[in-house]
Structures are given as structure tokens and as C-alpha cells.
């Protein structure tokens, strides 16, 4: 198992390097100019100066390797320093990946944005899993029953209606018409007592629900399919023949087996938590990672987009690996050597 993990990790390295190059190159080639969004009143000479000051004068390859060094060495060190308070090496003169728009280190921006994304998107994911698993189990056990039909329909609805549509609809209903929930997420809100906690719940309600609906739909469909697969297996008959209670048969024997693929699917979805939900964050003004990415794209903040995209790629690779390993842990049949 360990050896398998090591092997997978080793394989990931060239993959990640390839991705880093693709990401860098694609974004670098994009016809975007950091000064394009500035007012037209700024004269061209000044624009040119701004471009040079952003390091755009150097050749592509040099910039790539510089960025790679900054990303792989300097930024982790800086984050480490911030977390531990230690000073490692020449931290004063360490060149960091700077955002074009804010001129601040990109990682600082990301670290700042992470909490709201983790809260809202993470919570929605938890809600989704909590809803989806029982839903899938019951749907499968009572296949073709009314519950199953309705559940199937709702989960279909969940991934058929784009989040931007549900999001807007919720805002109109709950913020504009009913006035129950705030339409704008307050990222500076601090939970310190019951009231502020209640406010936090209220402001998280809509984005969480929108995302949870979409996620729960996917997971519950997986859960249902997996349960159906397992319900017809011979070992279920064996368990019944042993006189085990039906509830135990379903919730222990079948569920345990059905969860194996579902857990890996859930693990594969985790990077999206860190990646943020671009559309939902945009709609509800949850200024998390997804919103950061969109601002980055809109303002041609290439270093920011490059870094975010690459981090996202790393997360995907890592969670792929985790999903694989989880599979091995959960399923005793899998031996990775």
C-alpha cells in the first residue's frame, strides 16, 4: 500500500510539471494586457512602464522557471514562516509571486480567501453528503417506489438546473420578496454570540443550499446505483439466510460495500471545495477562491490565475491519489502491490 502510494506520488510529479507548464503557457499566451482595464486617460508611455514594472519584459521561458521557483520554493517557505513565525533564510529578499492587480503576494490573497470558501462550499458539501447518502440508500432499497421516483426526479432536477439559475431565483424569493435572508455575504462577520451565529447561519443558508442541491444530486445518484449493484449480490442472500435483521442487512452489509465507490467519489469532489464554486460565490458575493479567480480573469491578473489554477490542479491530483488509497483502505480486496 505504501509502495503503491509512493509510486502514484512519483507518477504525479511529471504530470504536475506538465500541468504547470500548460497552465503557465496558456495563460501567458492569452492576449490579455494588465493595463487594459485602466482608464483610457492613462497615456501609453505610462502603460508601458507599468508593464515593465510587472516583469513582462523577460522572455517566456525565464519567466516560467522564475514562477516555478517562486511557486515551489519561495511561496511554501513564506507560508511556513507566517504560520510558525520563524525566519528561514533570506526571507526579506525572497521573490514572491505577486498579483498584478494588487501587487501583493498571491498566496496571501488566497490564504485570506480560503476561510469563506471552506465554510460555505465545505458546509454545502457536508450538507450534500448528509442528505445524499440516506436518500440514495432509501431510493435503492425501495426501488421504483414513490419515494424513489420523487427522489430521482429531485436529484435529476438538482443537476439539471444550473446553479446560477437557482441562485438568482433564491435571491429574488428570499431576499427581495420575503426579505428573510441577506443577499450579500459578509466576509468580515465574526461569530461571537448567539445572534451573530444566527446571522452567520442566515447568510450561509442560500449559497449552501444552492451548492448542496447540486452536489447532493450527484452523490445520491451514485449512492443509489451502488446500492442497487450490491443489493443483488449473493452475499446479501447469505446475510438474510443467516437470519440477520433486514435493517442490519441493508445498513451494515450492503451499505458498507456500496459506500466504497461513493466515498471515493466524495473524495474526488473535495478539490472543488478548495477551488470554490465560481458561479455561486459570484452570485452571493461570497468572496472566496472562486470569486478571486473570476476577478483575476476579469482583470487579467495572470500570476493570480496561474497560481490558483495550478494549486487547483495539485489538489485534484492529490485527491485522486487519496481517493485511490481510500479505495484500498475500504476494500480489503484491493492490494496495491
Amino acid at each position, binding site marked *: 500500500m505504501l509502495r503503491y502510494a509512493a509510486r502514484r506520488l512519483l*507518477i504525479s510529479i511529471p*504530470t*504536475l510539471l*506538465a*500541468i504547470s507548464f*500548460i*497552465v503557465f503557457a*496558456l*495563460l501567458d*499566451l*492569452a*492576449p*490579455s494586457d494588465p493595463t487594459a482595464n485602466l482608464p483610457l486617460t492613462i497615456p501609453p508611455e505610462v502603460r508601458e512602464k507599468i508593464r515593465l514594472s510587472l516583469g513582462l519584459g523577460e522572455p517566456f521561458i525565464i519567466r516560467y522557471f522564475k514562477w516555478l521557483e517562486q511557486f515551489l520554493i519561495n511561496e511554501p517557505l513564506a507560508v511556513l514562516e507566517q504560520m510558525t513565525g520563524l525566519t528561514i533564510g533570506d526571507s526579506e529578499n525572497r521573490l514572491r509571486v505577486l498579483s498584478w492587480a494588487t501587487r501583493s503576494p498571491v498566496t496571501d490573497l488566497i490564504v485570506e480567501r480560503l476561510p469563506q470558501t471552506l465554510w460555505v462550499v465545505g458546509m454545502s458539501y457536508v450538507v450534500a453528503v448528509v442528505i445524499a447518502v440516506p436518500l440514495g440508500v432509501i431510493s435503492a432499497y425501495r426501488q421504483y417506489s414513490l419515494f424513489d*421516483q420523487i427522489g*430521482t*426526479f429531485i436529484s*435529476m*432536477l438538482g*443537476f*439539471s*438546473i*444550473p446553479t*446560477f*439559475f437557482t441562485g*438568482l431565483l433564491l435571491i*429574488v424569493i428570499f431576499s*427581495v420578496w420575503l426579505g428573510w435572508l441577506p443577499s450579500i455575504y459578509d466576509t468580515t462577520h465574526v461569530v461571537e454570540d448567539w445572534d451573530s451565529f444566527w446571522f452567520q447561519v442566515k447568510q450561509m443558508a442560500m449559497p449552501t443550499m444552492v451548492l448542496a442541491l447540486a452536489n447532493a444530486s450527484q452523490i445520491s445518484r451514485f449512492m443509489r446505483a451502488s446500492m442497487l449493484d450490491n443489493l*443483488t449480490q*449473493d452475499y446479501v442472500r447469505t446475510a438474510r439466510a443467516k437470519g440477520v435483521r433486514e435493517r442490519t442487512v441493508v445498513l451494515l452489509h450492503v451499505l458498507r460495500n456500496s459506500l466504497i465507490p461513493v466515498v471515493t467519489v466524495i473524495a474526488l469532489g473535495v478539490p472543488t471545495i478548495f*477551488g470554490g464554486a*465560481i*458561479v455561486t460565490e*459570484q452570485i452571493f458575493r461570497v468572496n472566496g477562491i472562486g470569486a478571486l*479567480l*473570476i476577478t483575476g*480573469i476579469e482583470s487579467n491578473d495572470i500570476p493570480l*490565475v496561474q497560481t*490558483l*489554477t495550478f494549486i*487547483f*490542479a495539485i489538489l*485534484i*491530483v492529490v485527491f*485522486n491519489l487519496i481517493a485511490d488509497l481510500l479505495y484500498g483502505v475500504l476494500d480489503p480486496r484491493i492490494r496495491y502491490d
Partner: protein
Amino acid sequence: MTDATASAPVAAAPAHRSLWADVWRQFRAHRGAMIGAGVFGFILLAVIFGPMLWTIDPGETNLRARNQPMSWAHPFGTDNVGRDMLAQVLAGGRVSLAVGITAMAVSMLIGAAIGVLAGYFRRLDGPLMRLTELFLALPILPLLLVAILLFRDTLRANFGPEAGVFLLIVLIIGITSWMQTARIVRGEVQTLKEREFVLAAQSIGTKEGRVITRHILPNVLSPIMVSATIGIAAAIITESTLSFLGLGFPPDFPTWGRLLFDGKDFMTRSPGRVIWPGLFISLTVLSVNFIGDGLRDAMDPRIRGR
């Protein structure tokens, strides 16, 4: 299972039917899928033939009829420069559906090709699966956005404004969404390869190319078709998301997503501008998903036996 699944057909009088007829029979039994097929068929017919019956030019502005509610003259109302919403929704549907179907076709083509090659040729399996993983690890939405910025104008220049963007969006969605199909197909091909009829073909001396086209491909058709339905749905959603973020088709080119994006500000004033395109997106995706569900059931031999 032994006796419980009485799958052997009655030898006496088997009604002559092909496998597809069988699939169709099972499909028909899936109520959701049949309703889905009906709705999807209706939408398809509406966007193909609708503009021939409803001849108002979707781009024609009418400053005297702005923000009209639903009426006989404008069944879906009009927008803020007096364009007819029904005409726009129909025209937008053509684009959205064409994007969905073409992007799906591109993605299926790539996915099936890579899946078959990786599954069939052991030597290619490693590299191709690495490639698949690489694509899976690429964060799609940001790259999509960048690629659109990157190539939009080149393609526009070469293929004209509409065809260019269409081509670009279709290609990009296709190129970034084939991985699941490839994985499924590869798995399926690997099991098929061990099936004795493939071995039989080899023992006959059938050339590899023909083994693939004659024995492998027809048998991976069902997972491909199921992925295809999911692909259409996903492509329609992706296109509308892009348009919603203001990064898909340009504003003068109606698609459902674009209409929704343009209409969202008018949501409370003329709800029709959001509801109609939103409804059509959702209905299409929903119906296609139900079709996929029905196909999956119909093609699953375990279920079909019942």
C-alpha cells in the same frame, strides 16, 4: 443465480428481434425516459422548425414594443429593446442545442478513441491513461475561460464571428470533457477484450482494426451512448455557465445561457426573460438526463433480463 433468473428465451417461438429492438422495448418501459424523450423531441423540433413558423427576426428591435409581457403578438414577451423573446429563445435553442450535441460528439469521439486504444493496446494504456489523468487534473473552468480569450479572435477571423465562436466553444468543451468517457470505454474494452468472442475473432485471424470496429466498438456503444446523453446535458450547462459569466458567446448572438445572463437584471420586471431560457435549459438537461437514465437501464443486461 441459477434458477431465479429465467433468462433463456423460449426456444419454441422467439419473436425475431435484434438487440436494439430489445433495448428499445426496455427503454419504452421506463416512464421517465419516455417522457424525457418526448420533451427533448419536442424541444428539438421546436428549435429546428420553430423559426420557420415563427418568422420574426430574433435580432429585430422594436422600440415601440419594449419589455412587453406575454401576448399574442409576443407569446414570450419582448426584451428591453423590443426583440421578440420567443424568436430569441428559438434561435438561442438552436445554438445551445447545436453546441450541446456537437460538443458531445467531439468529446465522445475523443473519449471513445482514446478509451478503445488504451483498453485494447496494452502498450498505449499507460501513456494514454497518464494523458487522461493530466486532462482530469487540469482545472477546466479557468482554462476554458483563458482559452476563450486566447483563441476567440483568431477563430473569429478565420471562420466568421458566429462559426468561429461556435467552433471554439464546441471544441473547448469537447476537448475538456472526454476523460470520463475514455475511462469508462477503456474499462469496458478491457473486459470485452477478455470476452471469448474477441478471442474467437483473433483465432479466426481477423485483423486488429476490424476486431475493433466489428467487435469492440459496437459493444461499447451502450456506455458511450449513456455518456453521450450526460455529455449533451453537461455541454449545455457549461455553455450557459460561460455565457452567464459573460465569457461565452458575444451578446449579439443569442443562446439560452446568454439570454439568461442578459435577462437576469430584468428578473423582477419581466420575469419571462429569465424564466423561458431558464426553463428551456433545465427542461432540456432534465429530459436528456432522463433519456440517459432510461438508456442505462435498457442497456444493462442485468436489468434487461428482468
